[in-house]
């Protein structure tokens, strides 16, 4: 019921439509350079960079609106005056926004299949989607934590966007700390597995690249839950 409330409140026209348009633009806005199969697969990696930029904007705006915005508009006070557990409110908002964002981006990313003349069963498409999922989870949990702490929608949006752009700029292509670096590592490992393309990527490196953002996300989610449930005051 809270999921439906969140959907109808924060995903009303034209929010969902703008997110879809943005995702489509991010996918279409990529140069298709190589004609051979390996080259077309490689294009999946090049599109990830632009997708990442749009993701940061979308996550920053939507999660800030859902959490920080509801404080400044008084809607959180209203919700918490009803017999609702705080953990349920947080979970409903978080999961609704996360699942919609990932569904939109994954669906739009699958446009690469016809665009790049790939098979629908091409595993590298789904490897890229898995990479996007991990990044969406990481961005969403971080944005949730920041929004709960900041409680002001505008400042929250700016903080989230600047923080993640800053992180991506500073970390460059670091294989664990930056999204592009992690994606290249994971992508390279599965390319080696499926088509024997060198260089070989160690399995441990891939595990770290995936576990690092997921562990941090879990930590931030637990912190957010404990803070919202037991400590946070709303006035």
């Amino acid at each position, binding site marked *: *019921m809270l999921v*439906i*409330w969140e959907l*109808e*409140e924060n995903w*009303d026209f034209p929010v969902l439509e703008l997110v879809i348009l943005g995702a489509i633009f991010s996918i279409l806005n990529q140069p298709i350079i190589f004609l051979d199969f390996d080259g077309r697969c490689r294009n999946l990696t090049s599109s990830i960079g632009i997708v990442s930029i749009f993701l940061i904007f979308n996550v920053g705006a939507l999660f800030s609106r859902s959490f920080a915005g*509801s404080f400044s*508009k*008084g*809607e959180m*006070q*209203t919700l*918490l*005056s*009803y*017999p*609702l*557990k705080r953990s349920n409110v947080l979970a409903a908002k978080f999961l609704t926004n996360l699942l919609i964002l990932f569904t939109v981006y994954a669906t739009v990313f699958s446009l690469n299949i016809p665009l790049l003349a790939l098979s629908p069963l091409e595993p590298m498409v789904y490897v890229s989607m898995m990479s996007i999922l991990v990044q969406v989870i990481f961005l969403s949990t971080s944005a949730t934590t920041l929004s709960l702490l900041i409680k002001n929608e505008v400042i929250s949006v700016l903080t989230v966007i600047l923080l993640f752009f800053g992180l991506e700029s500073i970390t460059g292509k670091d294989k664990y700390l930056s999204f592009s670096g992690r994606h290249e590592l994971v992508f390279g490992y599965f390319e080696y597995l499926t088509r024997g393309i060198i260089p070989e990527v160690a399995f441990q490196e891939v595990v770290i690249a995936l576990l690092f953002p997921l562990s941090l996300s879990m930590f931030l989610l637990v912190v957010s839950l404990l803070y919202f449930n037991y400590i946070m*005051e*709303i*006035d």
Partner: protein
Amino acid sequence: MAGFIVSTTKLTKSFGSVLALDDLNLHIPKGISGFIGPNGAGKTTTINILIGLLKPDHGEASIFGLDSWRESYEIRKRIGVLDEKCGYPKNFTGMKFLKHVARIYNITQSEKRARMILNDIGLSEAGNKPIKTYSAGMTQRLGLAQALISDPELAILDEPTANIDPSGRILLLDKIKELHRDRGTNFLISTHILPELEKICDWISIIRKGKLVDQGYVKELAMKYSANVYRIEVSNPQLLAEKIKKTNVVELVWIEDARIYCKVKNLEEFHEEIPRIIASLKLKLRSFQYMHSSLEEIYKEVAHGE
């Protein structure tokens, strides 16, 4: 404390260097209770602590014997709240919003219930319009509707008549009395409009600078803070007033609308002296009435006095 549905014991809350509540010992019995005080007295902070939005620094707050912070979820099943700072989802229609609220309270036939409460509160025609198109008065009525939709045991209303026109206020006050009479709903009302509160409240709690100044049944407080004024109607008020002024039993005598008002110094002597004077002047006595202090007068004396 036994018999009270809302209790606070040494409730203290600060925001930085500002002491919002200072050892507040509030007790609210069943019935319709008023919670009054000047701006910044701590009324909204008290209400926010009671409904579990804020945690007290020291002391305790409880509703129905349940701790307001630790057992907030259980309390909220039994109360309805109209908070001063509440916001409502602007894209929803009034009807859709109330249906959602009804479902949160596990009310079956949520649509029927929402329609009924919209009708009761005078918003039936605006129910299918988005909340963002509502005026301030309509939004306030919607707030009342969501506070009352679950038929709560206790409705906590912070400034319920703000932005509502006079006829709407009469409707609302009648609704509050009706709900209390027919369904036993208890109310805790925080407002600045004292004459309205006086018409419906049984109990008043007065707060100032975070401290409780006084609380009790309205009639008892009226007696306690009485200005000791009597109103006398006789056939010749001018003559009687002249005579009374020469006695030593009154501080002040004045005439208003052909009625004599006396601020009494000594009640016992007044009761002996005045009938004797009326009899000696052979005047016809029409009424002889003690004037209880109004809530405004009590409030002025208690909340603004030192």
